[in-house]
């Protein structure tokens, strides 16, 4: 994963969180859908930045891999993203 070291990692935990995040993410950023945020994966629409979902949380909630722009990642990849970005923000 090529990552901009000045980028922000957005962790989205809910549908409302996605709305807040969508208006505030910038090119180079990443979005990861976590916990109940994975429910938004199927109707996420166009986003200006790459979007992932935490496979473990999706599996727990019976959310199938939505395909399209949202790609599943595991916890190790999430840790790698947190290390590769300058900061993270949680949208609950």
């Amino acid at each position, binding site marked *: 994963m090529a990552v901009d070291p000045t980028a922000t990692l957005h962790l989205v935990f809910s549908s409302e969180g996605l709305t807040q995040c969508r208006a505030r993410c910038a090119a180079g950023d990443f979005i990861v859908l976590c916990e109940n945020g994975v429910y938004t994966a199927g109707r996420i629409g166009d986003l200006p930045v790459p979007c992932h979902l935490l496979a473990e949380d999706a599996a727990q909630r019976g959310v199938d891999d939505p395909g399209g722009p949202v790609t599943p990642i595991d916890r190790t990849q999430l840790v790698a993203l947190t290390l590769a970005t300058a*900061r993270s923000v949680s949208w609950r």
Partner: protein
Amino acid sequence: MSRAHLFLFDEAPLRNVHALELLDAALVAAAFDLPTTLLFLGDGVLQLLPEVSPNLSQEKAMARQLAVLPEYGIEQVYACGRALDERQLAAASLVLSVIRLDPAEQTALFARQDVIIGS
């Protein structure tokens, strides 16, 4: 090394103690001379309304605690302009003066932070 800290308030008042705890954390950061900024967005802007009848609720609103921000050296207090407008909150009705930011300006604010903490 002074790492810039941004505290994000996005929950309505009286719902739980998250926002109060977040404010405590912000005051601690400021007391340790860390560059500290607050941003109110979404329903969080309702925290900026005066506490009208505190005794009617067991929960504590944050309005009174917000008054001490300048004493802790927290001068950068921002609010989402869109959230204020959606809730028809005029600047004069808020307990302290805040700087309005649109979402794009908030993105720029994020980019200047080392740490972002939300409730």
